[in-house]
């Protein structure tokens, strides 16, 4: 009887574990799922009075502008700026040449990329215990490693890295007095943030999708 009872408990328990482990809650499984589009606007801003816009022909590198080095890739500036211009035009704005016509507002686009590092101290180090006797060999291997992860047999630590990027779009109204001289007031802004993983084509496609989303969630921008 005890055998049957014990076996039953084991079987039912095993069933629980299988069911439990098999339905682990969802997590991010693609770079596009890290994309976030944040938009904000100045309360009380009248978007109907700004019909003409101008926009510089390059994306400002925030890190470089602040005096630091940057890895911002300007290869796709033209496509990104064209997409932004297209979205503004679709809701009634007209782009003018600031050299000949004073625009009602200015669109400023800036970007930044950041390398993020995470160190996991809880990594199951016992799997590397065998390397202890081959210290010299491991040292050689580590010096030639070229991947984005490094494993240290003498410490239970693994380091992973990923690159994230943010694109800022600002609509600046020069007619609104700034709080301090030399500043400008943004009446609408968008921040597009996400993990920069995948091919350039994929990343560019995600940026285009997110630019479209920024305008879709800002219906008040329309001049109509």
């Amino acid at each position, binding site marked *: *009887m005890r055998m049957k009872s014990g076996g039953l408990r084991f079987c039912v*328990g095993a069933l629980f574990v299988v069911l*439990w482990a098999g339905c682990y*809650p*969802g997590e991010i499984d693609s770079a596009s799922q890290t994309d976030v589009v*944040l938009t904000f606007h100045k*309360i009380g801003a009248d978007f109907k009075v700004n019909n003409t816009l101008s926009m510089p022909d390059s994306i400002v590198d925030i890190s470089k502008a602040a005096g630091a080095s940057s890895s911002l890739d300007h290869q796709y500036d033209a496509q990104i700026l064209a997409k932004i211009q297209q979205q503004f035009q679709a809701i009634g704005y007209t782009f003018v040449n600031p050299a000949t016509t004073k625009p009602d507002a200015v669109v400023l686009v800036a970007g930044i990329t950041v390398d993020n590092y995470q160190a996991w101290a809880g990594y199951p180090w016992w799997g590397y215990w065998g390397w202890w006797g081959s210290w010299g060999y491991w040292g050689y291997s580590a010096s030639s490693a070229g991947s984005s992860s490094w494993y240290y047999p003498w410490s239970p630590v693994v380091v992973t890295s990923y690159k994230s990027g943010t694109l800022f779009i600002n609509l600046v109204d020069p007619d609104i007095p700034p709080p301090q001289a030399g500043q400008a007031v943004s009446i609408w802004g968008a921040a597009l943030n996400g993990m920069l993983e995948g091919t350039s084509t994929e990343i560019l496609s995600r940026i285009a999708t997110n630019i479209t989303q920024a305008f879709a969630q800002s219906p008040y921008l329309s001049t109509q």
Partner: protein
Amino acid sequence: MRIRIPIAALALLLLPGVVVAQGRSKWFGLTWSMASPMQNSKDFVSDYSFRGLGLEWRQLSGTTSFGLALNWNAMNEESFRTSTADQADLTGTQFRYINAYSILLSGHKYLGQAGGPRPFIGVKTGTYYIDRRTDVGLWRISDNSWHFGVAPELGFTVPMAGNLQYESFYTTVRYNYALAAGDVPYQSWLSVDIGFAVRR
């Protein structure tokens, strides 16, 4: 973390054996706990949850019992949505989670005859620890809080046949209501537990 959860589950499975030699007025149950979020909890996560565990001890006396119950329900939802606050709008894929842990005292009344299927009614009360988390993009927003709560429940138990007369399958439906605590509004969900009990 994923490795630790099944290990903890296996450890819990060993516990029924501990009570084997303690007399037949004790009931020890282990359940697979599912949950359907309601009201405020449903506003946060709406998916039905198949992820949870229950562990229960009851001291039987005639047609009544009192005891202690530990429960865990993990409710989650993945959605692509736009959240609005004041003059800001945020769009992205959101992963939302509620992990609810409870430590509850219980009282039950049993109907029917010993040896056959027996419905029972009961109420549990005690404390809930509720952890709510939202992952959106590369960002995380979370809060956690302790709540006082109450949980009425209905259930029935079916004894196994043959030489397993001290083992039984049982199922319960429980309404969990955790009162508001701090900035967290009241939370509620309906649990459906399926499991088995040993009586010693």
